[in-house]
């Protein structure tokens, strides 16, 4: 009996220690698996996808094929979500644009064709032209036209049976020649998730 009491006490103490353990917020690597889970595109997918697409486009040479002294221009049009999960498309497009600019530098012209971007340009140009604000004469010019447009689609295939589910994502990007409609480059990113439902949720 005397031996059992310390053992029991230790057990209870260990249990209380575990139960009273505090929670913490900590920084984690965005390339790691998300500990929260969820069979959806995660930070590591977005980073890998953007990095891969930017490298692939850069190495294809499509955007660096302009004659000496000229620069190829392009803009990102849209990302259509055909999948079964809503997603913030801006986060993907912004990341890709950043990676592309990083990979291509000033060798290409990346144009802002967003509604807000165009409106800001129009307002500023008008203000400069009518003398409301100062502007450099040498910086005057036409709004740049685009040689290529980059667009993408997110598709998914979900299979579900009982307590098992798998989700396959296919994100495809295409670079379209805006003179000829030729698809000058395409690339994709694939990932697949498997989930098993706990008995308490079934």
């Amino acid at each position, binding site marked *: 009996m005397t031996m059992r009491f310390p053992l029991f006490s230790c057990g209870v103490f260990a249990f209380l220690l575990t139960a009273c353990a505090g929670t913490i917020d900590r920084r984690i690597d965005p390339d790691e698996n998300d500990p*929260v*889970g*969820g*069979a*959806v595109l995660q930070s590591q997918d977005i980073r890998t996808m953007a990095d891969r697409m930017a490298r692939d486009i850069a190495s294809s040479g499509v955007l660096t094929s302009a004659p000496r002294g000229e620069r190829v221009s392009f803009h990102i049009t849209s990302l*259509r*979500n*055909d*999948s*079964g*999960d*809503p*997603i913030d*498309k801006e986060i993907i497009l912004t990341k890709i644009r950043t990676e592309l600019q990083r990979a291509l530098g000033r060798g290409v012209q990346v144009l802002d064709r967003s509604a807000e971007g165009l409106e800001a340009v129009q307002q500023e140009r008008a203000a400069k032209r009518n003398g409301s604000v100062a502007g450099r004469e040498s910086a005057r010019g036409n709004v740049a036209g685009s040689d290529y447009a980059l667009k993408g689609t997110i598709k998914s295939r*979900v299979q*579900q049976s009982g307590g098992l*589910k798998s989700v396959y994502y296919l994100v495809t990007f295409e670079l379209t020649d805006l003179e000829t409609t030729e698809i000058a480059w395409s690339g994709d990113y694939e990932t697949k998730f498997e*989930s*098993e*439902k*706990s*008995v*308490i*949720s*079934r």
Partner: protein
Amino acid sequence: MIADFARQKITDGDAENLALVLNVLAQCELMRGRTEDARKYFGEAGAIMGNWQTSGGEAFSAIVGSESSKTWKGDPYEKAMNAFYLGLTYLWRGEPDNARAAFKKGILADAEVADEKYQADNALLFWLAGRMSLLMGLRDDAADFFAEADKANAFALDHGARGDRGNPVLVGRDGGNLVVLVECGMGPEKYAAGGQEELARFRPRWHPAARARVWLDGRAVGETSLLCDVDYQARTLGGTEMEGIRKGKAVFKTATTVAGAVLLHQAMKDHGDSARTQAIVGGGLLLLGLLTSTEADVRHWPTLPASVQALTVDAAPGSHRLRIQFLEASGRALPDLDQTWSVTVPERGESYYLFRSLPGLDRFPKANP
């Protein structure tokens, strides 16, 4: 008041109820016309509800202890309703593709019900996914979704759901440029039944509003048609594996309690070591029985409607005065619930409005996708 309560619960409430609280808060924001806030909250709730990951500790606690200690992820009909609201908020944001993604997510959530035959019977989500496909220019996809909506409606009606055969909204498919969505009544209540309260069951809640008549610029343009009977969706969930576990726990609780009581009774009659052993074991069993929680988890989304209905109207572009007149099942008008709104129909595209059969509501935002 409900929104303030929900906000407080998000800060200091139980983490396992977060998705439930977020959904209620999102509905409040929707009613106040704050669709972006509503989208954020519905999105956060949906992420929790759609996440299948469960820790071993959580599963152990829910099985051995109280089931309501687990993270609330909602029943399939609740996941489908979260997807419905989330889709609408994306539509109002001008993103029909993300709206369609949400409706597809809801269709998939509806397929999580245990009884396979009820796995694709939410006509509302199929119909909305069809309309979103059209907005995206995907006519073939739209046709497929509309066909599924017809099948879902016919199936649901055959199996006891409220609604109309030859539902004019489903027949009209892509008709109308003003889409009036109406939520009628109060959604089902989940309660515990059985001797040990181990069974989770649903019962409808009474509300006078059964459907709505829509008036545009003083002219009656029709009555809404039921596309989703939420009561029916809840009661056709089918059994769950947890229900089997709770039944087992109920048997265990009964057996240990009875055995414990018998042993204690026997101990009182006996003497010496035998009586002491019987008292210890009997007391232990009794305690184990009393500590075994068999109650079903009856947490549910209490602010859902009993049904979602729709009417599509061909209206001239511009501003209109829209009146929603809620009706009892007998057809008698409910003047206390009358709502008059100013709505706008765009030159191109469609407008979607959502109304709820509650008194004193303000106007919902418009959408011009």
